[in-house]
């Protein structure tokens, strides 16, 4: 173990990796702080560049860029009332109300400090839980994996979206895209229409660049709203008063971090859902709920720590089972495969140094977030003034080159464009995108485990529930499927009960 730790240490503290981390941090802070660019987009645009790096710096770039972007999304939320990333949307109004009261420093400082605290908490859970889970997962067969993947997809549809039917549609579309090409257990070319490029399947990276970045560029092009005004003139000492806040709200910080990590670990739910849930929870359990919405820091402390802890949480299922916790880890899994670091429990036994390195990267990223974040807040006014009408065309060009760079193929550029237009139209019409991504990433795994299990059990479906863990997972899946129905029945039951009582 110590040899692996030492090896990890030398990989992480290599000058090249450190340089990559610093650059990725600045990039992440910038992308997060520009409204309209999300953390997921930051990672999607990073992939073509990380493609040319060794594995550890590549992961370092993605980990640091996302952590920074999720924090810096708070900056325009606080100063312009436009959340930089969806993960900051939950408390944007609150932070802006604080800015109007002249408390922008406290709001931004709380966002920064408790983001780092939450991120570190999530990392500790990742360090403790992932290896233990991996140990457990080593006994899993195709039956357990089948149910696990199905559970992940089910959660993405039923738990994390308020429109299960529409989530189901995007999930199925994602699964269908995953069917394209030769990559199926039968090795039969499906939906290729005789096109040589299609036999390799639809490239995941160009698709994600399209869905997360090109769709944003389209959204900007058709956005008719005028840009927001910056309220604050000067932001000075952001750290002052944070220690007092930490002493005042320890329960909130812990609760936000725990909830964030748990939500992050749930497939399909990411930092944005963690932030919303945790803000609601903070208000519900607060001693002074009437202050929420008027510029009260409590909710920012709690949901600020939740959204960053969700990032580390999302890596738990990603590393242990290869099941992404959010759309960012969905991209990361694609990169891990490209780097021959196939996620799964064996990663912990065969390449422990890589796992340790990932843990260290998380710790470092959350620590350097504080000084770099202060720097970012200081120059926030300049970043916010970067004209987006210059930035968006540049991002589009970057998307084109990035999609092309993965396979040097113009076909992939076409895939990117189609994915971008489809994602834009779907989102406009209330279809969530995350299930589609999960479908694409997990489709192959779902089919493979399904077919393997069918062959093993000789086509007998009872085989899917004959092992205890598989049966329990199956029960959970069925329960989640039935949850909307049960909720409806419960609500109806309560309504009849109250009407008879009246």
């Amino acid at each position, binding site marked *: 173990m110590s040899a692996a730790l030492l090896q990890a240490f030398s990989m992480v503290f290599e000058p090249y990796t450190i340089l990559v981390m610093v650059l990725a941090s600045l990039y992440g802070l910038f992308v997060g702080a520009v409204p309209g660019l999300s953390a997921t987009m930051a990672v999607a645009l990073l992939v073509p560049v990380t493609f040319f790096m060794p594995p550890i710096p590549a992961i370092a770039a993605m980990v640091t860029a996302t952590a920074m972007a999720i924090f810096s999304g708070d900056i325009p939320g606080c100063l312009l009332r436009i959340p930089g990333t969806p993960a900051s949307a939950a408390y944007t109004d609150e932070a802006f109300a604080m800015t109007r009261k002249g408390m922008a420093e406290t709001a931004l400082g709380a966002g920064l400090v408790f983001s780092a605290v939450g991120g570190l908490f999530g990392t500790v859970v990742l360090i403790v839980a992932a290896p233990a889970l991996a140990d457990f997962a080593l006994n899993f067969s195709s039956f357990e994996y089948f149910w696990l993947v199905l559970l992940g997809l089910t959660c993405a549809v039923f738990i994390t979206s308020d429109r299960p039917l529409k989530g189901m549609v995007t999930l199925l579309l994602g699964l*269908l895209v995953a069917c394209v090409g030769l990559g199926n*257990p039968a090795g*039969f070319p*499906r*939906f290729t229409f005789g096109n040589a490029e299609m036999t390799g399947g639809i490239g995941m990276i160009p698709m994600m660049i399209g869905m997360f970045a090109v769709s944003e560029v389209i959204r900007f092009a058709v956005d*008719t709203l005028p840009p927001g005004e910056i309220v604050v003139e000067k932001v000075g000492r952001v750290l002052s008063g944070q220690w007092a806040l930490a002493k005042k709200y320890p329960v909130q910080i812990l609760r936000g971090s725990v909830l964030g990590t748990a939500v992050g670990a749930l497939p399909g739910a990411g930092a944005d859902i963690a932030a919303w849930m945790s803000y609601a929870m903070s208000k519900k359990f607060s001693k002074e709920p009437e202050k929420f919405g008027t510029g009260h820091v409590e909710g920012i402390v709690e949901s600020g720590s939740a959204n960053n802890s969700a990032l580390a949480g999302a890596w738990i299922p990603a590393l242990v089972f290869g099941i992404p916790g959010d759309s960012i880890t969905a991209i990361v899994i694609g990169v891990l495969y490209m780097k021959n670091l196939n996620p799964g429990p064996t990663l912990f036994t065969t390449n422990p140094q890589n796992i340790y390195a990932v843990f260290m990267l998380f710790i470092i990223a959350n620590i350097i977030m504080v000084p770099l974040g202060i720097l970012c807040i200081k120059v926030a006014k300049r970043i916010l003034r970067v004209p987006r009408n210059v930035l968006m065309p540049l991002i589009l060009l970057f998307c084109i080159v990035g999609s092309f760079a993965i396979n040097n193929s*113009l076909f992939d*550029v*076409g895939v990117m464009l189609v994915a971008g237009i489809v994602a834009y139209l779907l989102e406009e019409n209330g279809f969530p995108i995350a299930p589609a991504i999960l479908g694409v990433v997990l489709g192959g795994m779902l089919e493979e485990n399904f077919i393997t299990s069918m062959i093993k059990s000789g086509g007998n479906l009872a085989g899917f529930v004959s092992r205890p863990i598989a049966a329990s997972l199956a029960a959970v899946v069925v329960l989640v499927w039935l949850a909307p129905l049960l909720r409806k029945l419960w609500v109806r039951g309560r309504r009849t009960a109250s009407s008879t009582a009246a």
Partner: protein
Amino acid sequence: MKFNDAVFGLILLVLGALVLAVVRSYPGIPGQQVGPALFPGLIAIGLCICGFMLLVKGWRERHAAPWMRLGGWTASPRHVLAAALVIGAVLFYIFASERLGFLPTAAISLLALMLAMRVRPGRAVLIALIASLLIHAAFYKLLRVPLPWGVLTPIAW
């Protein structure tokens, strides 16, 4: 651009039916009950079910939700042009970059987009040129992505 759910429902029904039709021709694997058609077939059935449910839902809401509602941007020529150029720029790259080369294609696309998004002309020209050169240098020289030279092949560096 918002559509009534029934429109999506119909599209999904057609898509599901098409997939089912295509997978029927897929061969079975000797000695196995499950072949390459099973998984996409199940997905197609799912799409048909969801499509039907959306169709019903949209039909019920047809008085509240029109079949199609255009966004406010469609009334503004500037925004329509910008949206068309975003898509047009990618298509232009796909069809012209090999012959024209990366640098001219990128510079032209950037310039057109920035002008449509109301960047001042002088500034737009300058940024389009510098950014094309920088992105080219980063990907072609540093990351060794074979970006095409096209008409600039004689002076390739």
